[in-house]
């Protein structure tokens, strides 16, 4: 009798387990269907744009197809020189602004983060609270006085208003990201170095910097992407076409009344996001971890 009782329980447990795996399998299948459909819808517009960049204009409108009837590389050649200034210039401008901004951001933000995470000084908590508050302030609020300041300095129509703020640790998000990372490094390292007579500068340079390359790289990547895509800053400060960065140049396709410019416009749009896309492919892991760690957008 005990035997039967045991075997019944065993049976039900087994059945229960089987039912559970069956259910899990079915749910897993449903999930995959949902995920595949969603990702196709998400990605469709981007692939459509790539394909439109190869289509002649009469095939762009009213067409859902992702495969151009004929591959037309002309759009790229035409787009590159379609505006009064060639895209060679726009890409060089963007590269200059972006590279200097990335350098500025990484240096100045890691300095501030090192001070907040590792050094002791009077008023540290107050400054830290103020730094966190600047995270909330929209750029539009400081835009006008900053513009007037740079106007008085004679910096409008130069790249200085876009670059100099980056050397002054203006993007508090990066400070926050690096503080989070620095705090994970063992303090014993600093202490040992201090006993060996290292100055805080030496510790930053020889210990903190090399150990936090992933955090520096994450900040550099985000800084690259945001500066490359930035529209409002260049829109306000750059008025001469030959100074334009790529996003401003793209906008010129819209303000011109060239109804036949769609193909070239999409070709240049694709080229404009290509560097970001490549960065994403290469540094995907860093990017995804950076977001999970600090809530960067």
């Amino acid at each position: 009798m005990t035997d039967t009782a045991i075997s019944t329980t065993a049976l039900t447990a087994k059945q229960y387990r089987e039912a559970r795996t069956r259910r899990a399998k079915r749910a897993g299948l449903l999930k995959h269907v949902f995920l595949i459909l969603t990702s196709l819808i998400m990605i469709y517009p981007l692939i459509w744009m790539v394909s439109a960049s190869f289509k002649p204009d009469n095939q762009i409108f009213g067409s859902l197809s992702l495969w151009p009837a004929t591959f037309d590389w002309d759009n790229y050649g035409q787009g590159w020189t379609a505006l009064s200034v060639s895209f060679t210039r726009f890409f060089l401008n963007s590269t200059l602004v972006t590279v200097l901004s990335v350098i500025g951001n990484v240096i100045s933000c890691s300095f501030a983060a090192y001070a907040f995470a590792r050094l002791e000084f009077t008023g540290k908590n107050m400054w830290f609270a103020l730094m966190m508050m600047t995270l909330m302030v929209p750029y539009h609020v400081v835009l006008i006085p900053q513009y007037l300041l740079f106007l008085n300095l004679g910096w409008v129509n130069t790249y200085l208003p876009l670059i100099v703020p980056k050397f002054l640790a203006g993007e508090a998000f990066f400070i926050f990201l690096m503080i989070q990372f620095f705090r994970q490094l063992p303090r014993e390292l600093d202490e040992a170095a201090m006993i060996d007579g290292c100055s805080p500068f030496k510790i930053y340079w020889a210990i903190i910097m090399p150990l936090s390359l992933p955090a520096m790289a994450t900040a550099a990547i985000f800084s690259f992407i945001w500066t490359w895509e930035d529209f409002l800053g260049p829109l306000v400060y750059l008025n001469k076409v030959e100074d334009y960065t790529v996003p401003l140049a793209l906008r010129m396709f819209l303000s011109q009344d060239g109804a036949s410019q769609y193909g070239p416009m999409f070709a240049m749009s694709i080229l404009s996001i290509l560097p970001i896309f490549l960065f994403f492919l290469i540094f995907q892991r860093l990017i995804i971890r950076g977001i999970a760690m600090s809530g960067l957008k």
Partner: protein
Amino acid sequence: MEKFFRRNFAGYAFLAPWLIGFFLLAIGPILASLWLSFTKYNIVRPPQWIGLDNYFYMFELDDRFKKALQVTFTFVVISVPAKLIFALGVAMALDKGIRAIGWYRALFYLPSILGGSIAVAILWRQLFNYDGVVNSALRLVGLDGPYWLADPKYSLWTLIVLAVWQFGSPMLIFLAGLRAIPTELYEAAEIDAAGPVRKFFAITVPLLAPVIFFNLVLQMIEAFKSFSGAFIISGGSGAPLDSLLFFTVYLYEEAFSYLRMGYASALAWVLLLIIAAFTAIAFWTSKYWVHYENERG
């Protein structure tokens, strides 16, 4: 005195770039724009003190200000919850050992990293054109789509869709949060025969509340600040019929098209106060629905 100096020197040396930036580019401009908001200023002539006139005009006579508020609030109130619900749904489908998770994650995040670019804003204009991709797809199922961009009834929806499309970053943060919920809780609930809905509301939501709150505040601030999409899609003016007149677009127009720097500064301060108020409300209500693990003891 010397000791005090020595103790603080390194900290302030590393903090120096940020401190300069904080005074010159953050707190200075914030206070300057407060002062400017009480003046009439068009750059050519010196600022002229007019007391509260800008604010009286704004709240009593300026219909475009009211329209901008209405458009922005509608956008925030619809796009933020929609984005978060979508992000949470996808994150839940992605959680727990699903195959090819890396691929899905990358695909879902891609729109967020490209979404701020002008290229995508240009693409969006094309997608929602009358003979664009969206209407072509609708025609396949026998529907006649409206003039999405030209009809003020629909134009804001194109931007809401654009915002929801960029759900990648809250999704990644949700994923990290879901990982932290112990599986045993769900197993225990299953033994008690709790269905998926019950499990969601009794386990997932309460344990995820801090992450939901974090995403909510972040996305809300982000939504209030959004600019380039509306600027490009509306052709820089908030058209059609001001239905895309985001607060930031109106502010830009007042400041840099009409050079009404005083009035635009008043708008900027109103924006700052609105964001601060919404954040404060979120924090205040969070007492009732967000409980942190370590508080429970």
